[in-house]
């Protein structure tokens, strides 16, 4: 009976214990939980731009990599959570001292995408390719599914209308202007800070958990019965000042780079090409990742073209950019090939080539030359294996060739790449299942065909 009595007393004791605690302790405990999840869950993991390849089976062989600063921060937040837990158990009053390290960590977490732009432009570019091309492939599938005029097996084709930004879509490199200070410029400001839709949707849950944990921790500190309000009133003016200062500080190099860019623009308009080239070099110094922008390289190329420098790769990048502007992707690919022959290691070269090939493949596909289109898609994948649009292109080529099994395999690569996005769209998964269903049907396995088709119509089961 003793153990039974003890068991009955447990809830009562737990109740008494819980009532004796300041409720802020629960918030702080919750914040520790969030921080633990943050340390455990990946923050920013992508297929490595260097190590991911096409395997022997012709499919993606993904090697993942995490942005190093994200690893450091997630370990840091995990450690911070551990310290909080220790203090909570040992000396809860001292928790207030941790609020400023907490704010600092929050600022660093928010600044992470900006740091990535600065130090890991390859990953930014990879993010952009995965995000925008999974999205575009998905929209294309959806467009075809919604368009009742078409039968997806026979008539699926690429929507040629997406807004053309690919050559310059390195986020945050929109032209800066004073409109950015107004409400209409808010998206540009977020972009400039690295907080793009691409980042938001590729960043792993750990990043969100980390920020949630740090915010809940502050709620716990400022919500404490003893001294919480006093700390809040004391810190209140400083918190926004510090956060704004962090953002202002990280934007300084960008602002200097932008200043040089504007001086370069003026020098070009004056016809002072030498000065313009100097200024453009200065832009690259202050904003290293701008080297990945074809539009930026084309600005240099316009000058080298005028000077008749045929051994300068930028001259061909300028021509490629012009070709892109009139949607002549095969022309762009040819110009890029010449540039690549002169400077194969140029940052961004493989992305530009990959993009030019995939767009060329789309054009050729829409003219009905499926095998030729497939050749372009394969070329694109040789440069950028994580290009979902190229995989999708290969898949619909196989649909036309009535090889549903191969179509399903290639669509599955899109689904695999989609797994790196935080928000899933239905169409890639749907088309994968549908292709598998047709594949089974074609080989006479009606049971399996029915199973896949039923799955296709029941997204709740995915």
């Amino acid at each position, binding site marked *: 009976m003793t153990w039974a009595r003890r068991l009955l007393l447990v809830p009562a004791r737990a*109740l008494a214990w*819980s*009532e004796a605690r300041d*409720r802020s302790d629960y*918030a702080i405990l919750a914040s520790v939980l969030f921080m633990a999840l943050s340390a455990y869950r990946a923050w920013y993991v992508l297929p490595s731009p260097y190590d991911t390849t096409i395997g022997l089976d012709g499919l993606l062989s993904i090697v993942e990599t995490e942005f190093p600063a994200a690893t450091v921060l997630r370990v840091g937040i995990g450690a911070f959570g551990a310290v909080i837990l220790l203090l909570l158990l040992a000396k809860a009053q001292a928790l207030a001292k941790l609020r400023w390290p907490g704010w600092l960590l929050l600022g660093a977490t928010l600044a992470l995408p900006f740091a990535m732009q600065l130090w890991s432009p390859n990953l930014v570019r990879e993010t952009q390719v995965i995000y925008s091309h999974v999205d575009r492939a*998905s929209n294309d599938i*959806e*467009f075809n*599914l*919604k*368009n*009742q*005029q*078409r*039968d997806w097996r*026979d*008539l699926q084709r690429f929507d040629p209308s997406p807004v053309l930004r690919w050559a310059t879509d390195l986020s945050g490199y929109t032209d*800066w*202007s*004073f*409109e950015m200070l107004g*409400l*209409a*410029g*808010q*998206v540009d400001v977020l972009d400039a800070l690295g*907080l793009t*839709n691409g980042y*938001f*949707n590729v960043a792993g849950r750990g990043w969100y958990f980390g920020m949630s944990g740090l915010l809940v921790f502050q*709620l716990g500190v400022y*919500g404490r*019965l003893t001294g919480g*309000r006093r700390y809040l*009133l004391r810190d*209140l*003016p400083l918190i926004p000042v510090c956060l704004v200062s962090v953002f202002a500080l990280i934007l300084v190099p960008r602002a200097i780079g932008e*200043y040089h860019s*504007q001086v370069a*623009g*003026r020098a*070009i*308009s*004056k*016809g*002072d090409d030498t000065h313009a080239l100097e200024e453009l070099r200065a832009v690259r110094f202050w904003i290293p990742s701008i080297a990945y922008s074809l539009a930026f390289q084309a600005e240099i190329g*316009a000058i080298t*073209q*005028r000077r008749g420098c045929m051994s300068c790769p930028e001259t061909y990048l300028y*021509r490629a950019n*012009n070709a892109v502007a009139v949607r002549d992707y095969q022309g762009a690919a040819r110009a890029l090939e010449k540039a690549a022959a002169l400077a194969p290691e140029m940052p961004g070269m493989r992305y530009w080539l990959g993009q030019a090939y995939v767009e060329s493949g789309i054009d050729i596909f829409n003219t009905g030359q499926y095998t030729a289109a497939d050749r372009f898609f394969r070329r694109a994948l040789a440069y950028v294996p994580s290009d979902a649009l190229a995989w999708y292109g290969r898949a619909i080529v196989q649909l036309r060739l009535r090889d549903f099994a191969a179509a399903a395999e290639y669509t599955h690569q899109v689904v695999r790449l989609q797994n790196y996005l*935080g*928000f899933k769209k*239905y*169409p890639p*998964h*749907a088309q994968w299942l549908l292709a598998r269903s047709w594949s089974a049907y074609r080989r006479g396995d009606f049971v399996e065909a029915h199973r896949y088709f039923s799955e*296709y*119509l029941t*997204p709740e089961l995915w």
Partner: protein
Amino acid sequence: MTAAVRPLRSWRLLGFGLAAAFIFACNLMNVLTPYRAAPEIIADRADWIGISPPSNRAFFRQVIDLPFTPRYAWIAVATDDYVLYVNGQAAAQNQFAINAALSFQHRLSDRAQGVNPYVVPAARAPDLRLATNREWRVRIHSDISKQLRRGRNVLALSLQTADPSVRVSIKGEIVGDGVSIPIDGSAESWHASRTPDRIRGQSWIVSPVRADGWRQASSLGPVEEPLQATAPAGLWTRPLPLTGLTGPEIAGDVRFARVLPALTGGPTQSAWLRVSSTWPYTLTVGNTLAGAAGKTGKTEAYDLSRFLRNGPQRVSIRLYRTGLTDPAMPVVMLDGAVGSLDIAPDSSWNVLRRDDPGWLDGGGLWESASMVPMSPGTRPITLQIPTSKGWWAAEQAFVWAACFAGIALLFRALGGLGGLARDRTGGRAAALWILSLPILAAGAAYLLRLRFKETDLILDFLNPAQYGRSLALDLAMLVLAIAVYLVLTRAPSSAPAVVPRFRPGSAALSSDAKVRLLVLAISLLGFALRGYHIGIENLQADENVSLDAARGVLRTGAPYEISGVLYTRSAMYHYMLAGWIYLFGSSPAAARMMSVIPGVAVIFVTYELAYLATGKRHLAVICALVIAVSPWQINQSRNIRFYQQMQFFGICASYFFLRGFVLGRHKPSQNLFFAMGSLAVVCQEIFVLTFPGFCIAGYLYLRPYRLRDNINVVIGFITMMVVTVLDAGTFTLLCLTRNIGITTSIASIIQFHVINPTAFINTFFLSELHARFIGSVFFFAALPFWIRRSNAAILTLYILVITSVLAATVLVMQVAARYVFVLNPMIVIVFIASVDALIRWMAFHLSRPLAANPRRFQRAWIAMATPILAIMVIADLHLDGLMRSYDQHLIMQHESAYRYIAEHRRPGDVVISVSPMSGAVVLGGIDYYLEQELQFDEVYMTPFAIVDRWAGGKLVSKIDQVRDILSTASRAWIIMDQAESKKFTPDFLAYLYGVTQPRLEFLGGELLLWTASDGTYVQSKDSGGSIDDF
């Protein structure tokens, strides 16, 4: 020196000066450095033409014979929603009438002529009861030289307005062979029709037949309203001279320059330049890059007004080789005007002979440019917005610094008055007290300008005459403040010199029957505004769904739509609605009245909530008044949907939450909170977005918390959660209708995402047309104040608003402000409380150092500041737009088409529609649902066919299917609309319009009739696949 005086010596004084200078600089920069010329008042005489009797839609055409090849032609149109066709091609348009929420001039085909090229990204559905912008106030010019040809030409206009008063004013000119033919805008020259009838088998926009059988347009008299042009009209009305400038090529460049004189004729004067070049070029004004372009056969027009206001400027044009495929001869054609002075391509333009790094400043060797005659081919004009950036900031910074210096000087000067009031700060307090009033007025004026940025009222702010008025107002406020100050300092006083600490408001409540009567009167006003013309609108899409579901309840006992779909959303609302229409009838007006009741009740509850939160009856009355006249509230209260009911229960829940958890521990209120919260969830499941806010506020304010004392809270919480889960479960029954294909848009609209982190925030805090801008500015600006004051009630409202909007941002896929409609009274309460707090807080702190009699100064300051802020709050309500909206249709009027069909339908007639919703209510179902591209929840699969989920029409998505239907029917009614037409391929549209005749035009759409006996046939290509393929 006392503690009270110390703040004046601190950095706060500098901050005050900088902030004040910034406010003045913002106002002044609009005058001194506007980025483009102010709108011109159109002086020439013009007439309105229209159709009689007045209508929402009309079609006009004019046939013009041209005996020459046109070199140059322009047309200027002042009207509302329109499309201008020239020889069958759409040459210009401005289509906005089916969405009153669109920003002013946002749908102009030539966005550069719009005064508002940038708009904040937000969901724009007409959620507010506000009239459409008066786009007719601006005459838009278009270059139509490219579309015209020698011989017979057809000008055609499709017009539409939200109220039945379609009218247009037209001017224009066609030039060629040294002859100029005006485009006649008089009624005699235009033929009009209510429907776009084909003319001898041809479309009305291309048929060259003069005797078209249409009526002559009606003359509606001369244009008396001041029409404006947002860009200098001369850009279009003058032909480009047929003279080009050329010069020697130096290292691939040809450079021209001349000095343009300053604009001296005041802000109404403008300066512009048009450039057409064979090579790419850059245009530099002084040292500022103003633009760049260059394509043979095009003309770019630049508004240079802002560059020439500060003095004469050297304008340099650099033509450069690209090194690719440049034409052999570098020639630039140009002309322009600076005020009344014409700029011609003559010898005043110089060309550079020898390069020099300082060529932009005149360095190098220059000589007169050579002139060459040019061929008279067409070179269409496009307006360019000047591109210069960065350097403009220097000007702005300079104005800011100048304002700061001016304020500092004025501050010193006014400081001399300080001694009169025995001011212990050496006059600084007196100067602050006086200066604060004109600063407040300037700030209010600027906020209003931003507030009305997206409405046609922005034209009044851009009017140069307005600049003087603003300045006069500021000066008047300054003089008034000085006068009041002098009077007060000289008046004897016996009041104590020391004032108590600032208190934001008393929390003591008292009952006052008279005030409640006032609230009753406000509620009657609210009732009138909600009930007046309640039937003017046709049923909106979602209204049909709810009305049909309620009729299903009466028919079957369950909310079955005509299509067979079981509409399980908000069971409580639909059963109540069923009871209501059983008692009062199912006409739209009668059904809408059910929403009026919670709409009016919310006024009462807002009053009580505001009184509870602020402790002041007069503020609560103002909040109730604002809610009574709020366009958002009025619109939702006239809607057959559950949002108004959800808001009522939600606001009741908030009221009881404050009483039970925040301001007191009133147990019945706690229980009522859970009851009301549960009812709100049952009304609209999206109310769950407020739960995080309630949880956080409960966490912060329900202290101390003991389980045994608050067991009712636990039970209430669990009950509310169970209700929520059951409600969500019932709601998902809706999804049991079978999918026909999997697309992202069929997914639940509630799921975690970070797709668009700013859209929901913009949509709620700015709203359509910036309608909540001022309220939101005060909402956020006052947050530190309320935190500092630890006002638990107001802070709870903050928590609820902010967390709910954030929750909506990351959880709701479809961005729509109505999902957080419950928050509107909360933001209104915080807004009004913050305005009140601002006045009294500033009055207190500004008057405190005035030792003689601070109380008197405080009262005087409040008396002067209150009207300024009151005017701002009243103007913010945009009552003019609200009142005008009662004569307008704000949504597409499909229901009228169905009623027309009901009146004219014969046995065997088939009804096909792109918008089946009203078909369910008016006709009890339709035969076919016509849609080429499907959206999220439009269709579902029955054992027999794919049908639409409203009226049960069988899906028709291919031309072949339409042809099959038409081959077996004697007559077919087809409803098309502007929104859905965009989802059809041109082939499909050509087929539909080719085989039918228009029967009725309604706002946003048209009713077409196919009659077998007409024998019309249109070929269409085989798009592949069989008819039943999906």
